């Protein structure tokens, strides 16, 4: 018996020292040598690749959902006849929703809770339908997604595939807005909203990062470059136009406002209030229109001197131009520190 005991121990010891192969799966299919971002600034967030599970079979319910308060932020999208909202209280835990039916086509809604940035990406990449997952990696504290077809890594706020077979590709963005649930459902009472029936059991009422969202001193991972022109966690609306990024503070839109300004050779209309902002790149006949903020808890958000009424996505919903759409500027709502890290030295709008 004593010998058997010793043999058993020796076997256990050697088993522990050897690399077991049953768990050794390749972590990716991409070339690890090539990145478009500095590899020394990429961080392992902790959960690992897929450790934060994307939602692949989203279930939606009507606007009478009782698990969201009016002040909770949602990501809103309209595509075709589809109006949908994705609450932060769910996105905080999943970061990605692969929604295969938004107006009849697949869209990936992605949200980074550490930088407060949300985008809609076309679910067809390089001619093939795909879905995305959370890589568990961060660059400048911001989400890096991977596409499940090729394993390529995509930097969310850089809006570019930064590693893998599709390196250098740009995601096709679908416009989204971010606002309070109460505002969104007043604008679009027929909206559907992502339910808590996600296929996962999470504490959706609980914000998973403590006081991160309000503590301006607290970053989980340092960013480069840092910019202290505004409080780090202040949410700003930023227009990204090649070499120039222009940030707009929500406090400058209290009570509602329209701004028309030209930079980088383009004229932008920025319209919003303290809860929601969107911007449009004007061209042709729209350059001569005189826009007015005109929101009164309905879909109409602004109007013009021709008598047209426009919604927050820049679609004329009433008037002689009904059905026409303004071109939405490339833009995002972001924590200040993040937009300033990805697009250094952003200009800050001031009156």
């Amino acid at each position, binding site marked *: *018996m*004593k010998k058997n*005991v*010793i043999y*058993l*121990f020796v076997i*256990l*010891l050697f088993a*522990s*020292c050897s*690399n077991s192969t049953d*768990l*050794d*799966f390749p*972590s*990716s299919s991409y070339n*690890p040598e090539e990145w478009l971002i500095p*590899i020394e600034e*990429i*961080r*392992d*967030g*902790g*959960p*690992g*690749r*897929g*450790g934060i*599970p994307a939602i*692949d079979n989203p279930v939606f319910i009507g606007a009478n959902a009782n698990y969201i308060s009016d002040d909770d932020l949602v990501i809103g999208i309209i595509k075709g006849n589809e109006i949908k909202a994705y609450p932060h209280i769910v996105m905080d835990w999943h970061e990605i929703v692969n929604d295969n039916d938004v107006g009849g086509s697949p869209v990936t809604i992605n949200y980074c809770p550490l930088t407060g940035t949300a985008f809609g990406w076309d679910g067809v990449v390089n001619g093939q339908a795909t879905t995305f*997952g959370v890589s*568990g*990696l961060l660059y400048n504290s911001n989400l890096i997604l991977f596409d*499940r077809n090729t394993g390529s890594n995509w930097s969310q706020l850089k809006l570019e595939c930064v590693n893998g077979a599709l390196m250098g590709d740009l995601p096709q963005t679908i416009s989204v807005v971010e606002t309070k649930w109460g505002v969104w459902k007043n604008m679009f009472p027929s909206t559907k909203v992502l339910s808590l029936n996600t296929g*996962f*059991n*999470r*504490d959706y009422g*609980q914000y*998973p*990062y*403590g006081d*991160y969202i309000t*503590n301006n*001193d*607290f*970053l*989980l*991972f*340092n960013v480069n470059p840092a910019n202290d022109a505004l409080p780090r966690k202040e949410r700003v609306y930023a227009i990204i136009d090649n070499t120039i990024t222009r940030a707009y503070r929500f406090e400058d839109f209290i009570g509602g406002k329209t701004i028309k300004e030209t930079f980088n050779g383009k004229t932008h209309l920025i319209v919003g209030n303290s809860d929601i902002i969107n911007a449009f790149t004007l061209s042709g006949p729209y350059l001569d229109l005189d826009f007015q903020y005109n929101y009164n808890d309905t879909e109409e958000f602004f109007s013009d001197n021709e008598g047209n009424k426009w919604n927050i996505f820049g679609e004329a919903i009433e008037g002689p131009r009904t059905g026409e759409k303004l071109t939405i500027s490339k833009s995002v709502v972001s924590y200040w520190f993040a937009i300033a890290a990805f697009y250094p030295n952003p200009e800050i709008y001031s009156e």
Partner: protein
Amino acid sequence: MSEMKYRIIILTFFIVGSITTNAQTCCSGGIPLSNNLGLDISEKGTIQIGLSYDYNNLNTLNSGTENLNDNSRLRITHSVLLNVGYSITDRFSAEALFSWVNQRRKISQLGNNTLDQTSGVGDAVVLLKYNFPKLLGENSAFNIGLGTKIPIGSSTETNDIGIVLNSDLQPGSNAWDIIYYSLLSKNLNSRPSFSVFSRIIYRSSGTNNSYLKTSEYKFGNELQAFIGFSDQFILFNTLADPSLSFKYRSAEKDAIDGFDIESTGGKWVFLVPNFSIQISPSISFNTKAEIPIYSNVDGTQLTPTFRVSSGILINITRKQKKLF
């Protein structure tokens, strides 16, 4: 103060300390350094050498005390531990604990598996202990100890694409910790082979000042308190020594740059069955398990599913050394 009152105070301290004291620890997947301290203080000149293997499996995702029924994330820590103890006097001893670890993180989603792992020499612990015999009467022992965790393990290991893995997956911590140790044991007069014991280990964690080059990382302070009993009997002509204990572990949140990190730290209670047999007069074999019976994690995090460890302990007394 009468001797009886003195004993009652000490016993109360240990029992209450074993059950209620708040403290902190690193994340749940850590290397079992504190867990494996506590070689006996033997007669002067005795050398003890322990070699053990520890397997820690974390496959239970909890939110507070609630099991979320999500086993897609798996953390495994394999550890090989080498304990070396030397009794400088009959009451004073030194103990060192060295480790080699393999840390694994496996994620299973949609039929795909991803594994990140590191391997290497882990941190070490040096502990000095002093014994107050008969403080609680005949056949009792009261040990106190003070030690440090020495950061000899690497804390900058990368995954297979060259990205530095997070602190929880590193073999080492790059931080000096202070270890406080105490042990109280008492053998019953009516049955001298039967003993009750309590052991408390508190780790005051140091800070890694160069985490990811530009940040500071501090694992939460940790308290581990054991209370249990053991007995001895003859099994197949071999001296067997089974024991059963409860382990309470409390860990504070980790901190980065001075800010607490959510979903780290918590409180746990484990049932720890232990069995050892005497293979020869100087060699014993030991195996034990840790079964969580209460887990209350901070936020949402993986919590231990089970842990097993086995090892041998060699006692070399002064008389045996003379034989060589």
